[in-house]
């Protein structure tokens, strides 16, 4: 009897207190991606991409018709919660944001500023800080979400995978964005998506797809400008230790060109103490393999290799100089983190320049040195098609 009461009470506890947040998989709408655009009335227009779980082929039995893999719903609202509510009203299943892989921000929206919406992405526990943030250039975020990507179940998944290919574009998650945004002497960036055309087999005409191209620069949560692809690759030197890059360099004297695949790279920023204007020194160090040699040089000869190495180093240095010039003069935005470095190396000096860091940064003198080591040139010395006498030994 006593046992009976105990078990009964436990059951009451379980039934009345448990299950409150139980939700079957089929009662949730999996949001794969969100697009944020500026609505006509100045509010935010959010578009979410919701995955449709296809009924498994076993159950349908026989000819299964092509079902949509995803669909979109949009709503215009003032802030995150407002949007959430308006979107939910259009859904028969609870919106589930934990699996969202990308947040796309339309160019208009980005230029207007993200302060109205960013907070909800960090405060709501069902949002992941690992979500990638990308700015869409040249088209609305909503339209980009509509693109059917051939590989993945939903295009957002495709985007996520694209982002994961490190080294090809700026990879920024919400977390990175928040950290950079909150840091002194550092400005946040995101990757940029652009529409691209592709021809699908069996279909007439071109279909719109997208490509990752360049970097968006933010200043106090507002988009200030873009970097192009080459500049982005220079920027990536500073993002993490560089994983990979492909470098093409012309050899001096019109001797041809070489292709180089970078396998690892390091950077080091040195601040030169107490100078005015500020002086920085960027040291780049990289390893890699030469994969293409469109010249008559025999690369088994170390002198020839030295020529190639110099050419490659010069190429990197030029690009880097161009990149630094652009962010210094055009945008006046320290996305690399020179300020952060100064703060670490010379806090006193930093305090004097912190308030007008943008101006100081624009005036700073930055020198670059590149140190490349070619580790592998392939098993052949000169190109195989060359005659013996054509080869420069």
């Amino acid at each position, binding site marked *: 009897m006593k046992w009976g009461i105990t078990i009964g009470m436990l059951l009451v506890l*379980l*039934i009345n*207190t*448990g*299950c409150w*947040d*139980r*939700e*079957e*998989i*089929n009662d*949730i709408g*999996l949001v*794969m991606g969100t697009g944020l655009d500026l609505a006509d009335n100045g509010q935010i227009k959010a578009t979410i991409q919701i*995955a449709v*779980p*296809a*009924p*498994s082929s*076993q*159950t349908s*039995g026989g000819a299964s018709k092509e079902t949509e893999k995803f669909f979109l719903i949009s709503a215009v609202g003032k802030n995150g919660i407002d949007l959430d509510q308006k979107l939910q009203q259009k859904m028969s299943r609870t919106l*589930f944001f*934990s*699996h969202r*892989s990308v947040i796309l921000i339309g160019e208009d929206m980005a230029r207007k500023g993200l302060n109205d919406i960013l907070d909800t992405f960090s405060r709501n526990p*069902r949002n*992941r800080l690992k979500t990638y943030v990308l700015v869409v250039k040249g088209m609305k975020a909503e339209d980009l979400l509509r693109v059917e990507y051939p590989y993945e*179940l939903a295009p957002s*998944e495709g985007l996520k995978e694209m982002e994961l290919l490190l080294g090809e574009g700026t990879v920024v998650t919400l977390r990175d964005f928040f950290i950079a945004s909150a840091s002194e002497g550092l400005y946040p960036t995101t990757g940029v998506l652009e529409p691209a055309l592709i021809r699908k087999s069996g279909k007439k005409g071109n279909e719109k797809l997208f490509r990752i191209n360049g970097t968006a620069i933010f200043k106090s949560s507002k988009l200030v400008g873009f970097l192009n692809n080459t500049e982005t690759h220079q920027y990536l030197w500073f993002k993490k230790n560089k994983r990979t890059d492909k470098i093409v360099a012309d050899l001096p004297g019109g001797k041809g060109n070489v292709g180089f695949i970078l396998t690892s790279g390091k950077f080091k920023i040195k601040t030169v103490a107490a100078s005015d204007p500020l002086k920085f020194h960027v040291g780049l160090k990289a390893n890699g393999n030469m994969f293409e040699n469109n010249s008559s040089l025999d690369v088994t000869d170390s002198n020839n290799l030295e020529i190639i190495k110099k050419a490659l180093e010069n190429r990197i240095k030029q690009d880097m100089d161009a990149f630094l010039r652009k962010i210094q003069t055009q945008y006046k935005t320290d996305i690399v983190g020179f300020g952060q470095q100064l703060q670490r190396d010379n806090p006193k000096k930093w305090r004097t320049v912190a308030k007008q860091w943008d101006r100081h940064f624009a005036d700073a003198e930055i020198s670059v040195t590149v140190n490349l080591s070619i580790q592998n040139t392939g098993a052949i010395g000169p190109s195989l098609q060359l005659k013996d006498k054509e080869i420069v030994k």
Partner: protein
Amino acid sequence: MTTRLRKGLTGNTTAFDDPVSEYAEKALSDDINQNKTIIEQAFQRCSDLVCRIIRNQDQVDKPKLLIAYLGTLADEPKVREQIVIPLSTDQRERFAVETEAYEDESMPAAKKVVTSKWAEIIRLILRGYAAVFTDGEDRAVCFAVGGMLKRSIDEPASEPVIRGSREGFIERLPVNVGLLRHYIRTPRLKMEAFAIGDLTETKVLVAYIDGLADDSVVDQLRKKIASIQIDGILETGALEELIVDDPFPIFPLVLATERPDAVAGSLLEGRVAVLVDNTPFVLVVPVTFWTGLQASEDYNLRYPVATFTRWIRFIFLFIAIFAPSFFVAVTSFHQEMIPTSLLLSIASAREPVPFPVMIEALLMEIMFEALREAGVRLPKTIGQTVSIVGGLVIGQAAVQAGLISTPIVIVVSTTGIAALLIPRFTYANGVRLLRFPIILLAGSLGLYGIALGFMGILLYVVHLKSFGVPYFTPIAPFSLRAVKDVWTRAPRKNGRGLSAPSRESGVKAQLQDGGGE
């Protein structure tokens, strides 16, 4: 059950009366006819009672000898060759001499008892003895002439091995003792005999190696067995329940095995075995939780292989208890834990299913248990039918009909296999039982429920004691030297006994630490 039945039939109100008590006080008479009447009265309506009378050739009217035995227990050729022929041809009235002074001068029978008590005579007759009464003598000589009804020694069906002995215990106690004696040839192997059951008089032996076994364990066993009052036990299961005080026995506190080598190994490790007549199962005490995960074959394999196998068992023990509940918890509470693509394919599979995932899991688990139970009780000839029907119904048709989803089929079948990995089936039964409450917890509280359930199981298991030894020895209380036989199968070293690891496992040490009850 039997007690109640007996009460109803006879109107006898005392629960456990001694069936031969009414003869306990009666002494033998020296009149052979009177003895015959009494014995026929005792075995009233027992059609297999045989009374043979041998008369003097000259005094035909006066019986000289009465031989009484149960024809179904005694071996007829033995009776003739060892009793009837010697007695009827003997000129020196040898039977009389036997009962009197020269007890050593034996008849050809293997075993004999001289007694003048009716109660004892009746008991002996029921054990396959033949009682010989002599005219003018108030004592009877009982000769063991029992034939043994037994099957051959086969490979134990419940615990097959690839490498190891193929012998298994059978239903006859003497044979089982013989098998054990073949393994351990020392007089230190003691066999203390008990008889349990007022009606069944079942022989029970407590076997242990003197000096290795813990005295307090043997003592506890002796006391418990002696205190048993029951009309009969038919199998070790009944005895197990009577000697173990666990009100809610999910995990077994004794090990039941059919393998003589396992019992011999346990004896060498200082454990105590309980052999019961009429069953091939032998009980071993004390045991720990880990005993259930140690197959006897582990000790015949090379130790890296055996260690690997043990780890596989540990992993699958967890899967056997928690896999379905983990699936339920994660898919109905913590969808954010599942990788996106897996979540999408689970969602696709579940799209046509009308039930919540917990109901689905319970449904399938119960179906699986039903199939398993059907498989155990099944006559071999229709075994295939069930496996085909079961496989098709559960595996395919149910999924196609949209009743259940494919992931749950995978989870349930994995769980089913996992439970089979536990070498001792009594432990596996406990594990299978635990699965269901944990599914309920997972379905109502999610992973938090699983954590609660796991804590509950852990609390329950560590509180258990098998004859004074904590059930989780040597993990809790911890003993580094003994834990080698749990986490690994420690390699053997020359000069160290087989008994070493387990005896240090705290069977003794822990008892001295106040573990003994």
